[in-house]
């Protein structure tokens, strides 16, 4: 190739590389004073992996512990949309949500500072149901059977807790109310008094002794230490079968404190919800002076119509708002038919919780429960530290390689060093151009490749030396040196590239970044050590015709 064109190609590549690496203005979502805003940032367009910039990587799969899912792939597809919506609203710059394989969702959230919250937002089913509390005392009717069952199974001794044993002395039949019989409500003092008055409560049965009647129909209280035991009972197949038909039992999301003891409410609800969250069109967090933090929601026309009809039929009943099988707040009494708008009170939770709940309600509920199968979370400071150390190692490696090449090959070594500078530029540009992700192993691979990149030049230089030793002229020796070294360079680089391709195919995350860096490095080193150094030699030969007799190599 003509020397002019060679120089043109090199200059064009340099220009393209600088263009690819030039810091550019990008629009990013950044967190400012707790709010996510769009902002423009100027930076070098090299994508850093999660391990370098900090962030979170999540892998989720369908959770089948609560029942099999027939078409997992389809379920994952649907869940993917929901997760993507949620993440988009969550406000992370450049998040990644994708399906991996047939049954897995990968979520990558760069720069996330609250991993637990992020995981919660992704994983929350956000299945909203409105269910009327039971008014038929269905649980009381089933209690004798439940007690008998548990007695037969002799599970009581095994599962009972110290908290439960305390109450065994009491032997009045059936359930006792934690409150005075006439439904004296609301005021805390009344609660305390009545609870104190009842003292030891509970029936003789294993089950009934743990459960106390609450304030409203279908409400029961279980002392917090016993919650585990009761939950365990409720999962026994025999117990499930003996529970009142057409009803479901749901725990409250918060606890209440009565006369020094903590209780959790257990609600008996009509199994069929009057309406679910599928009709929801909007949800907003809000704070009310009386009810604390809450989420206000709006339903679409069809939902509003249904909601109005159903609530109209249940005036004076209590309606539980059930989110992911937990009753949110105390079920309110239905005063009149409710239309399109409603609200969910958050109990004692903070505004952030209300914001997150509003977010997941807006984004829709997950069609299937998801479980987390992989979490990787790296702090931003650790990533910064890795970059810093990686760059230090790289600079030192470059320095050592320069010393070796200059010390051994002198002038030719200088040409190789110049080519090495271009190699670094080209490799980084290739990574930026292909939008490859630079990971920590990738950075290590890059540093290593600086040492390997000069191999082609070493091969060529050694060949040239051999040719010179055979008494050839400088010009011929250079030509022959390049030609003879070629087969070795090509074969060794192609086989390395093939290995890198395999790594890319079978690697994940950081390792994939490593393979990409390796591939970019091989391509760049072939160009620089063969093409660029050759051009340098040609330039040198052209410029000083009389100097052709000796070559510093």
């Amino acid at each position, binding site marked *: 190739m003509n020397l002019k064109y060679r120089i043109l190609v090199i200059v064009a590549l340099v220009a393209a590389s600088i263009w690819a690496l030039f810091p550019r203005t990008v629009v990013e979502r950044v967190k400012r004073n707790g709010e996510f805003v769009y902002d423009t940032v100027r930076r070098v367009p090299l994508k850093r992996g999660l391990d370098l910039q900090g962030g979170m990587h999540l892998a989720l799969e369908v959770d089948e512990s609560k029942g099999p899912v027939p078409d997992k792939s389809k379920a994952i597809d649907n869940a993917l949309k929901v997760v993507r919506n949620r993440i988009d609203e969550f406000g992370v710059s450049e998040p990644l949500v994708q399906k991996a394989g047939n049954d897995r969702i990968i979520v990558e959230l760069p720069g996330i500072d609250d991993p637990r919250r992020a995981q919660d937002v992704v994983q929350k089913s956000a299945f909203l149901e409105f269910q009327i509390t039971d008014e038929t005392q269905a649980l009381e009717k089933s209690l004798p059977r439940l007690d008998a069952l548990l007695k037969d199974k002799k599970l009581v001794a095994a599962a009972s807790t110290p908290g439960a044993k305390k109450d065994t002395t009491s032997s009045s039949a059936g359930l006792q109310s934690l409150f005075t019989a006439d439904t004296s409500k609301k005021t805390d003092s009344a609660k305390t008094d009545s609870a104190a008055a009842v003292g030891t409560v509970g029936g003789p049965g294993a089950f009934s002794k743990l459960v106390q009647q609450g304030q409203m129909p279908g409400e029961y209280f279980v002392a917090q230490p016993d919650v585990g035991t009761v939950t365990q009972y409720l999962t026994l197949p025999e117990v499930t079968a003996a529970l009142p038909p057409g009803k479901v039992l749901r725990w409250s999301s918060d606890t209440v404190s009565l006369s020094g003891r903590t209780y959790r409410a257990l609600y008996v609800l009509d199994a069929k919800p009057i309406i679910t969250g599928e009709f929801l069109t909007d949800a907003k967090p809000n704070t009310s002076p009386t009810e604390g933090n809450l989420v206000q929601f709006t339903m679409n026309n069809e939902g509003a119509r249904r909601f109005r009809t159903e609530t109209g039929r249940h005036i004076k009943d209590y309606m539980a708002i059930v989110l992911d099988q937990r009753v949110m707040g105390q079920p309110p009494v239905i005063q009149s038919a409710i239309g399109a708008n409603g609200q969910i009170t958050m109990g004692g939770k903070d505004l952030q919780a209300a914001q997150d709940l509003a977010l997941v309600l807006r984004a829709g509920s997950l069609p299937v429960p998801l479980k*987390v199968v992989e979490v990787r979370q790296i702090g931003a400071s650790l990533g910064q530290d890795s970059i810093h150390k990686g760059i230090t190692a790289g600079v030192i490696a470059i320095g050592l390689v320069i010393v070796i090449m200059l010390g051994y090959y002198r002038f030719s070594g200088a040409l190789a060093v110049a080519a090495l500078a271009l190699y670094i530029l080209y490799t980084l540009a290739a990574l930026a151009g292909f939008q490859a992700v630079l990971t920590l192993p990738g950075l290590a691979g890059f540093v290593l490749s600086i040492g390997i990149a000069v191999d082609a030049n070493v091969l060529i230089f050694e060949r040239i030396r051999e040719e010179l030793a055979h008494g050839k002229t400088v010009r011929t020796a250079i030509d022959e040196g390049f030609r003879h070294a070629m087969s070795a360079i090509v074969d060794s680089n192609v086989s390395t590239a093939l290995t890198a391709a395999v790594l890319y195919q079978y690697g994940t995350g950081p390792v994939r970044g490593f393979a990409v860096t390796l591939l970019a490095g091989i391509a760049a080193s072939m160009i620089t050590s063969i093409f660029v150094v050759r051009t340098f030699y040609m330039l040198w030969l052209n410029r000083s015709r009389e100097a052709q007799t000796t070559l510093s190599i």
Partner: protein
Amino acid sequence: MFRILHDTNYDFIRWWKVMAGITIAFILLGLGSLAIKPPNYSIEFTGGTLMQLEFTQPPDVGEIRATLDAAAVHGAEIQQFGTNREFTVRAQDPSAVAAQSKGAESIATTIERVLKKKFGENNLKVVRTEAVGPRVGQELRRGAIIAILLSFLITLVYLSIRFEWRFATAAVIATSHDVFTTIAFLKLMHLEISLTVVAGLLTVLGYSLNDTIIIFDRVRENLRKGRKETLYETLNRSINETLPRSVLTHATVLAATLSLLFFAGEVIRPFAWVMAFGIITGTFSSIYVAAPVLLWIERKWPRKTSARQSSSTATPTSRTRPSPATATR
């Protein structure tokens, strides 16, 4: 012109029996210790939880352990990581893994909670968490093995096309040798086998293969020149002729590897160790595995004209091969 090891004429292959003895002893030592105690897989492969913690004050490791034991996080391995204020906690035993599948971050959450309670909310920071379910770990392990085997297969095919099957087989056997020595090295150094280390292993394989190819390329060329010498002599000559290149390239790669080892931080160190060892084993296997194996294959399945004869009657395969110049243009 400053030259080292120029125009040498060492009889490298003469020592192959001694070298074979040394490397076999090393591999057996490694595999033997593997038989006694299984390798140290990272949580990426076994499933489990790894947390990297940064304390404001150097903590007492015994105290961390006691706190974790009290919280029923048993069998957690606590290791200093770099400075004496940084530690990794690794919950990797089967019961932890089983509990993990219920929700991969549960153990991490527990560890963070109890340690913050013990040492104070602001006195430690979780800088890295990795929690991997057992199934993911299994898939990764399978992926790593497939990657290694597939890279062998592809290499075999490529070299069979570019050289011929005898060279390809010898090169792949030399590379397999490096897999075993590197595994033995990992075991003897108590290095953890992580994804990054597997990437390092594959890099070593690529590098070692490079080295073998450079020598074989010279062998191919020398055979074509048709000197009156045996393959034994040709191999020795080729190794000697490529010796300056080997020394130079190993020096630059070693320079890069050492800077990684000393300056790139704790996370990359295992990778750098593997690579440092890889330079040694790669060089070794190119000379003492690839060459003797090629000799042995030649003796067993000689090319149509006897290998001991002058290769001026170049082999049929070599005649049909393109010349290096035309092949690469």
